[in-house]
Structure formats: C-alpha cells, structure tokens
C-alpha cells in the first residue's frame, strides 16, 4: 500500500500547475456565482461544455504538438475549411455518412503533410503551419464566400439532441469531446507513442540517441492536430449548422493560450490534456462573466491576456524554484 501513497504524492507534486489551473477555474466560477444571480447552476457549467466542446477537441489536438515543442497555427483554418466543405458537399447531395469521414481524413492527411515537411526539410513549424493556415483559409473562400446553411437531417439531429440532467442540457457532441479527452489521456500516459511525445519535447537529441522514433512521432503529432481540428470543425458545424469561410479567425491562438493556461510549456515536454481542457473552460467562464456583466465581448480577450501573462510568470517562477532547489541540493551533496 505504500506504493499507492507514493504515487499519490507524486501526483500532487507533478501537477502543481494543473492544480493552480483547477483552483483558478473554481475561483472564477465562485466569483461569478457570488456576483450574479442565476450564475451558479449546473446549467451554467454544462453550457461551458456545450459551447466549448469544439474548442476542447481542437486544443487537445494542438497540445500534442506543443508537447513536442512544435506549434500548429493552421487549426482554425482547418476548422473553417471543414465546415465550409462539409456544408458544400451536403448541399451538393452527399450523405453525412460520406462527408464526415472524408473531411476527417482530409484533416488527418493535411496535418501529416505539414508534419512531413517540418520533419523532412527541417523547416520551422511556425512557417509551415502558417502556410497551411493561408492555404486552408484560401480554399474556404474558393468554395464559397457566402455562408452555406446545413439542412442535413443527421446534422440537425446532432445539433439539437441532448440529454437533460437535473435541468441542465448536455448536447450529444459534448460526448465526442469527452471521448477525445479520455482517448488522448490514455494515449499520452499508457502508450509508447505518448511517452515518446514527452521525450521529444524534453530533449529531442536525447530522444533520438535513446533510439526513439523521433521523426515518426513528430509527423504523427501534426496528423493528430490536423485530425482533431477537422473533428472540431465537424462539431462546430453541428453547433452552427452552417459553413462560413471567415469562421474562427485567430482561434488557434485561443487554443494555444488554453493549453498554456492549462500548464503546457511551449518549450515542450510538460503539459496534460486535462489541463488544456480546464484551460478552455476557464476562457469559457471569463466569457460568461463578461456576458453577465454586459460588457463588450472583447473584454474576454483582455482578461484572457492578463491571465495568460500571469500564468507564464507563475510557470517561470515554479520552474526557477525547482532549479534553485536542485542547485542547493547539488551543492549539499558536493560538500557532503
């Protein structure tokens, strides 16, 4: 039983920044509840999940990339493309059962292609995915500059079907996000690929000297990111029942900031998808509070910005402190 005590202790130490994130979420939620009537309810919480599910999926995808120390800024365009292309195909008369697998495959392959270019030609992920962003956004406009409504029955069903639990509505697509989250957690913790993702982010050179498949892993994380973006696009089209070429501009930065608020280091190697999910929900809470306060929605950005700054400083301090502790320990050992 001492085993379990040890693991629990480890859990506490390792997830310091996750703990901070969760506390912050609870703090914000409490603050909102104290300030506004009818804020504190299960339905407010469930609405965070309903509105945030596509964001959670996309952010989890990008977390894989960030964990290896890379970056993917193409995801917002991939989401928009998925929506527009799905809407276009559905209007042309294709069945949802064909359209959804097809757009998911496109997202996956597009991510794989970017990953391949980054790896094979030693290109900067930022530039490659920037090109990807332009490309996908451009394709959206090529298909249609107008918003295309979706009238497909399956999409409508997904948009409207929900379970009602103690007065709170949970839409079906929240479960898609839940499956993605649980799947990602399992992959990162219990598969060789997942651990290699962390190793690559920790020290790429070491990882390759230890004989880990660094190249394959790098291509795979971009594929996952592309796939998750496409899946987020599908969920987003359930949510909005339309495809519009200017959807979600700049949303990749929200995803990155959610991951960072959730404890992911942009240098790679540190972070969890559960943290990222809480990060998304924190941004959701801020948005809700801003709405309740009747402020301009842009205030959401201002508060997120402040939070982001706060978080990177906290992370820096935490990291700095552990380095210091190590220094002191090293010295003690040396004098011993």
């Amino acid at each position, binding site marked *: 039983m001492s*085993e379990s005590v*040890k*693991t629990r202790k*480890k859990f506490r*130490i*390792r997830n310091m920044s996750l703990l901070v994130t969760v506390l912050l979420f609870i703090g914000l939620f409490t603050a909102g509840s104290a300030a506004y009537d009818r804020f504190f309810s299960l339905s407010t919480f469930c609405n965070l999940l309903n509105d945030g599910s596509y964001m959670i999926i996309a952010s989890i995808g990008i977390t894989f990339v960030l964990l290896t120390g890379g970056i993917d800024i193409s995801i917002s365009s991939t989401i928009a493309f998925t929506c527009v292309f799905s809407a276009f195909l559905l209007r042309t008369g294709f069945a949802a059962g064909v359209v959804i697998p097809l757009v998911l495959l496109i997202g996956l392959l597009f991510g794989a292609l970017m990953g391949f270019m980054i790896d094979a030609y030693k290109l900067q992920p930022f530039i490659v995915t920037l090109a990807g962003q332009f490309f996908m956004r451009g394709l959206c406009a090529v298909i249609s500059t107008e918003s295309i409504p979706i009238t497909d029955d399956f999409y409508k069903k997904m948009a409207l079907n929900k379970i009602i639990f103690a007065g709170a509505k949970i839409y079906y697509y929240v479960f898609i996000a839940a499956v993605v989250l649980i799947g990602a957690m*399992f992959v990162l*913790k*219990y*598969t*060789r690929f997942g*651990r*290699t993702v*962390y*190793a690559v*982010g*920790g*020290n790429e*050179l*070491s*990882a390759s*000297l*230890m*004989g*880990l498949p660094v190249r394959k892993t790098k291509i795979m994380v971009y594929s996952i990111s592309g796939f998750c973006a496409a899946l987020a696009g599908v969920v987003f089209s359930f949510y909005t029942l339309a495809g519009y070429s200017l959807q979600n501009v700049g949303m990749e930065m929200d995803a990155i900031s959610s991951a960072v608020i959730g404890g992911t280091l942009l240098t790679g*190697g*540190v972070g969890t998808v559960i943290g990222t999910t809480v990060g998304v929900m924190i941004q959701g809470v801020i948005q809700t509070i801003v709405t309740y306060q009747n402020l301009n929605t842009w205030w959401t950005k201002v508060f997120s910005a402040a939070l982001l700054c706060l978080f990177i400083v906290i992370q820096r301090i935490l990291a700095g402190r*552990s380095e210091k502790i*190590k220094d002191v*320990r*090293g010295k003690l*050992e*040396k004098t*011993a």
Partner: protein
Amino acid sequence: MSSENMLIQMEHISKSFPGVAALDDVSLELKSGEIHALLGENGAGKSTLIKVLTGVEERDGGSVLLEGVPVFPKSPQDAQKLGISTVYQEVNLCPNLSVAENIYIGREPKKRGSIDWKKINQDSRTLLDRFNLNIDVTKNLDFYSVAVQQMVAIARAVDISAKVLILDEPTSSLSSVEVEKLFEVMHMLKAQGMGILFVTHFLDQVYAVSDTITVLRNGRYVGTYAAAELPKMQLVGKMLGKEYAELDLSSEKEELIGGERECLLEMKQACGPGTISNIDLKIYKGEVLGISGLLGSGRSEIVRLIFGIDHLEQGEISLNSQKLAGKGPLPAIRCGVAFCPENRKTEGIIGDLSIRENIILALQAKKGMLRAISRADAERIADKYIKMLEIKTPSQEQRAKNLSGGNQQKVILARWLATDPQLLMLDEPTRGIDVGTKAEIQKIIVGLAEQGMTVVFISSEIDEMLRCCSRMIVLRDRKKVGELSGKEIAESAVMSLIAGGVKNGENKEAV
C-alpha cells in the same frame, strides 16, 4: 580473433574531415573485464575515435572487430544493438520524464496493450539497487543532481547492452565523493566482465581506476600501456608530445629584467561558479603570461572570468587597481580587455559576414551601437590588419567562412587588435591550424608584447607555450599549482607540475 576475452579490436582506423585528418592509423583494443583509459589533449582524436566506434561518424578506413566479428555501426542505435553503449558528460536523457521512465523508455514492459507503470517502477528500483542508488524513481530526472543523472544513464546503458560501455568524460561535473561512487560502479561492471572505455582529463582518476592506457596525439596513435607500468610524468610527456628523456632542462629564456614591474591585472581569491577555486594571479604590463594545464584544469575558466563571461562568485579582479565590474564582456572590452575564445567557429567567427565586418565587430561594440563606424574607416581598419597579420584573402569582402582556419584566427585577432586593448587574452589560438600559420601567430604574439601589449596565452601545446611565454602559471584540477618565470620555464618543470610531482619549490599541492 587473437585472445578469447578480446571485446573490441580497432585497427588502422582513419577518418578525415575536410582539411583535417582527425584520425590517422589509430588502433585500440579493449578486453572484457578491463577499464581502458583513452587519453590525449584537445584535437588528439579521442572523440572522433569514439564517434567512429559508436556509429556517429563513419570511418574512412580500417577495421573494427567486435568479439572477432567485423562490425560497421551506422548509428548510435546500431552500436547499442551490437552491445556498445555510451554515456556522455552531458547526460543524454530526458529531464522531464521520471527516472524509471528514462531507464525504460522505448522498451517499456506492457500489460494488455498499455504501459505497465508498476513494473517499470519496480524494475528500475531493482536495477538501481545494483548501483547502490536508493532514490525515488518516480520523480523527474531533473530533480536529481548530475551525478545521479549520470548513474541513471549508466544503468540504462548497462541494462540495454552489457558488453562495452564508453564513458566520455563522465567525471567533469562530479564532486570527489560522486567520482568515488562512479568508480565503485565501474569496478563492479568490470567484475561482471564488461569492457569499459574511459575518457577523462584527470590523470589521478586514470591511475585510480584504469588497467590500461591508450594515448593519442594529433590524430595519431602514440601507444598503449599498462597503467601500473607508466609513470605519470611519462604519460604527460606522451600526451604533450615530448619524451621525458629528451627534455632540455635548460631554457634559452632570458632572465626577466628585475625591478619593479607594473601590475596590470590582479585576481584575488577568485572563484567561478563550479569552475575554479581561490585563484590568486597577477598579470604584469608587457608580459606574455602562459596559463598551462591539461584540458579541464581551469585555464579557460580564468580568462572567461576576467572577460566577464562567467560570473565571479567570490574574490575580486582589478585592472589597473580598479575593480572590474564583471557584468558581461562589454564593460571588460571598454576597459581594454580583449579575448579570443577557444572555440573559433561557434564563439568567434561569424561566417556569413565579410572579413571587414568581422574585424570591426568588437570595435563597434566598444564604441556603442549608435556611433557607427563609417564604411571608409572600416575599410581602412580592415586593410591595415589584413596587411599587418598577412591574412590571405582575395579581398576584404570575402565571407569569413570561406577562409582557412588559420586565417579565420587572424581575423579574430584583428578584431580584437582593432579595439586597441591593454590586455589580450588568447585561448588556444593555434588549435587546428597548419604549422606555418601557427608560427606566424606565435611571432605576432611575441611582437605585440614587445610593443607593450600584455598577452595571456593558453595552449595545449607545451612547445609553443615555451617559445612565447615570459612567465607561466600552471593549473591542476582547477587550482593554481605553480608559477614559473624566466629560466625556470622548462618542459620538465611544467610537466611535473601538471602531473602533480614534487619538483618545484612553489608546488604546494600534495599528490
């Protein structure tokens, strides 16, 4: 092939890089149950030999036999599969993963398709127990000191393949207690029949642990000796390229003009961060001071400290009786200190800039970014030094990376001379350049001192140190162990100090 317990036989290995023959007909034999020290100064070819053995570099010629079978490792993984593992000074593990995971990543035990964390943690505990290491294996690697990290790296290496273990300068960042522990582990592995190839710069450690010594010099094989039969002095001689018997005991150096010499720079009880400890040092105006010692003895660290690259932890450094700020190189440059670092390619030359631009860099920094040096001035300065130092180039617009090593070194020298320094510090200025240019640079150094400049000169080659220096301090294990001047400067004296002998009166260190 020959004897039964022969693990590795490397014969007639050669390897050249553009312009340099890094290895020329080098041989090495490693038996099982043997700790074999590989020694040599900078540029001797130790690391190239190891890279060839571990598949990082491909050899140009020669053969490698592993237990009598020819092998041709193409990558570190290849070598690992064959049974050759390497642990480097800078630990090649992932700091963000747990100790246990670092040992097992890439070959994790699985249970029903998912990683069996319990088994990983248990197995690594059992494994580290063998190394007398009782630590919490679930903590992240960077929670532990470098010594522990290194032990973990060794544990991983041994667990993967237990034939040949290469330790590349494993002790450089360890304390003496930690070194002891490492030696215990090495003895244990040796008893299990592993062959260990050990690279280090600390001679005491060589004698403490190794059975056999192979010495390389300038990419050539010097010899293999039983450690018990090779006195330390002879070893130093072999490393530096002089047989002890051949040493000329008298130096042609003139006795320095006596009387009061003006002190330019003084170091009092200076300590760097984990580098040198309690160094007292005076540099007099117009002299060429040599700093001697083997690699890792602290010679570069002293000049880095003076130049403000490393942070002074204790003690003080004063220039012309004024305290040096020690906050980065710029204040030092403004005080008239110049420094050509050891690593020309990464710390000196900026390859994509022209010769002219490279030369005026330091002067521009000294003047401040806002007061730009005019094109005409820059051209004049560049021309002057190209002529003065005889830099061989078609024009001053040539990119610096297209020059030969020797000419690049001259460009860096020109860069610092352009700042008109009082104190010029040169760390290994002649490494890896041809003999002719070496002689030219030595001449320039002596000439500068005659004109009144003060020069600090560091080199691994004892010959050129003897030729250039009017005074010399000798370091061992990051401490000053002696000071020689005028007639005292002779190879035998320097070497006995380096080796830790008890020849010179000033030598306070016990062996």
